[in-house]
């Protein structure tokens, strides 16, 4: 195939698209676009759910890197020295200690068992956006004792009867109310509710927080240990970098990145996502292939006479085949371009109108790489689908073609 042949094939393709049925061209492009959108929609949504869960886990659970007791030990020990060491490392925004302890909350007739958490509120601000999620009252201060902040779901809503509650609550505690907390070690005291928050993350929304200072009173001694330490990375530093660094500095505890942690818990979910993604990819490819195959087959059948004429005046069959090839390429490219536009519009729309459930919220998360790889897959499928009938028809002998 020389340049002249390709030029003629392209001319024939353009003219056929321009002068053929406008509506069939538009419909074909639309179908390819829909297939493309279908191919990337579910994976994009799952990506976004994954991103969302990861962000929540980072924000409210473990930061970027979690330091937990090495095996066989109950606590991360030598807390002050460890915190000082980590906080001094490059790339670390802040490291904060966390405690969690079972407790029974009592308010009027309601009794509720939860696992409460203790934090160092000021440092925690650098790690978790919890302090921005207060819906009434205020966040804890470092020295607060006898004060507690509660999740909205724990505080409860007085207008909902106990038997209709989705999650057991204290039935409508408000800021300033006093609740009784009976800690697992038997220590019991009244706490003033300082604030009520709601984060949208399940684990955080079913607990409450006190300060480390308060926990020291509960335990009856200064705490030079923690249940775990969360580490927040500075922007631009990877979790992996921080983890490696921690291990190099000789932090002898168990160090895990959020990715490590999620790989385990989300592995199963990701597997089922992968299956759904494969199905939607497969369906997209099959529909596109079949549609383009039919479109080109009909085109070739309708223009058998024209094909005969072209051959009769000396146009080689390769030129005729590439004529249809170019038509498919043009249709596929336009379809994919429309698909990318449709997907982008959906991405924008879903950013402002995400699908929200108690566990996660989803918009569309697609990288340019996702779009490119899906475009390529679809394009290749389309071209194959078009070239098969083009090849078949270009082989027909002139007599049969011309007399049709």
């Amino acid at each position, binding site marked *: 195939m020389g340049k002249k042949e390709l030029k*003629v094939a392209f001319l024939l393709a353009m003219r056929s698209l321009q002068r053929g049925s406008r509506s069939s061209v538009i419909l074909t492009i639309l179908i390819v676009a829909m297939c493309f959108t279908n191919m990337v929609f579910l994976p994009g949504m799952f990506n976004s759910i994954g991103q969302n869960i990861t962000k929540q886990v980072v924000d409210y659970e473990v930061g970027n890197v979690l330091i937990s007791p090495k095996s066989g030990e109950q606590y991360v020990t030598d807390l002050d020295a460890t915190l000082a060491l980590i906080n001094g490392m490059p790339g670390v925004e802040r490291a904060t200690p966390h405690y969690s302890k079972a407790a029974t909350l009592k308010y009027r007739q309601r009794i509720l068992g939860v696992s409460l958490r203790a934090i160092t509120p000021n440092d925690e601000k650098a790690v978790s956006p919890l302090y921005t999620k207060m819906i009434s009252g205020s966040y804890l201060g470092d020295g607060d004792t006898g004060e507690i902040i509660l999740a909205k779901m724990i505080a409860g809503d007085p207008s909902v009867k106990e038997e209709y509650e989705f999650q057991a609550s204290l039935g409508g505690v408000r800021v300033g109310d006093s609740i009784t907390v009976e800690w697992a070690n038997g220590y019991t005291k009244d706490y003033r509710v300082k604030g009520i928050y709601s984060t949208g993350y399940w684990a955080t929304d079913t607990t409450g927080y006190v300060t480390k200072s308060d926990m020291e009173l509960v335990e009856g001694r200064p705490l030079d240990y923690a249940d775990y330490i969360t580490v927040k990375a500075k922007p631009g530093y990877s979790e992996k970098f921080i983890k490696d660094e921690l291990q190099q500095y000789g932090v002898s505890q168990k160090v895990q990145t959020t990715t490590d942690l999620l790989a385990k818990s989300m592995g199963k979910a990701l597997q089922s996502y992968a299956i759904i993604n494969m199905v939607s990819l497969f369906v997209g490819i099959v529909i596109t292939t079949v549609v383009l195959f039919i479109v080109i087959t009909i085109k070739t059948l309708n223009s058998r006479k024209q094909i005969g*004429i072209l051959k009769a005046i000396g146009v080689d069959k390769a030129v005729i085949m590439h004529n249809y090839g170019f038509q498919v390429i043009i249709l596929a490219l336009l379809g994919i371009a429309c698909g990318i536009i449709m997907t982008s519009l959906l991405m924008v729309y879903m950013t402002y109108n995400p699908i929200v459930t108690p566990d996660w919220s989803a918009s569309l998360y697609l990288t340019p790489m996702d779009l490119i790889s899906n475009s390529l897959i679809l394009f290749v499928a389309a071209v194959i689908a078009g070239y098969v009938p083009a090849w078949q028809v270009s082989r027909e002998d002139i007599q049969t073609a011309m007399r049709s």
Partner: protein
Amino acid sequence: MIEIYDLRRIYRMGDIEVRALDGVSLEIEKGEFLGIMGASGSGKTTLLHMLGLLDEPTSGRIVIEGTDLSLLSDYEKAMFRLYKLGYVFQDYALVPDLTVMENVSLTAMLRKDRTEGQYRKDSVEILQKIGLYDRRDHLPRELSGGQQQRVSIARAMVNKPDILFADEPCANLDSENSRMVLELFREINEEMQQTIVMVSHEDWHKDYFHRIVRLKDGKVIADGTNGSSAH
């Protein structure tokens, strides 16, 4: 020089067998302006299709300028048509999606021995000659039958092929236009020694032919130079 040896083309449709060509042998000299005449169904188009490599004979052989057509591959046949032959079809056979100009220049666009400037100039020239230059951007369906026929003639002639086959090129033309086409054929035949094989029904066309071959039921029944045995 075209040599045809005992050419047969038999169409079989179920039990019925149509002998469209039934043992035709002919020699056509280079530079000859040959007329093929005969009643409808006598095999004229079939013969021209064989010569134009559009169909394969059931038996027999065609040799054009030393090339045995039966030995050519599909690609070689396409190239043979592109570089050596021009063909005017009985039903014009224009490409419906292409304009008049595009139809005329399409084959020239494919030829390696034509530059863009050259084939544009040639196409314009031939369209002017047949009086359709001002319709160059029209589609075939926007033209009358006669006009389409003239475009088909222009397309066949634009590359100045060694051999021009024309299947009733004047069938849809008035006598004035017919005369113009025949004059054009005579001109290129005389000036460039172009071989022309033309099928015709019209008796008065005889005056233009050097030689006339008459077919009947797929057989040559008369073969003679103009004014002699062909009558």
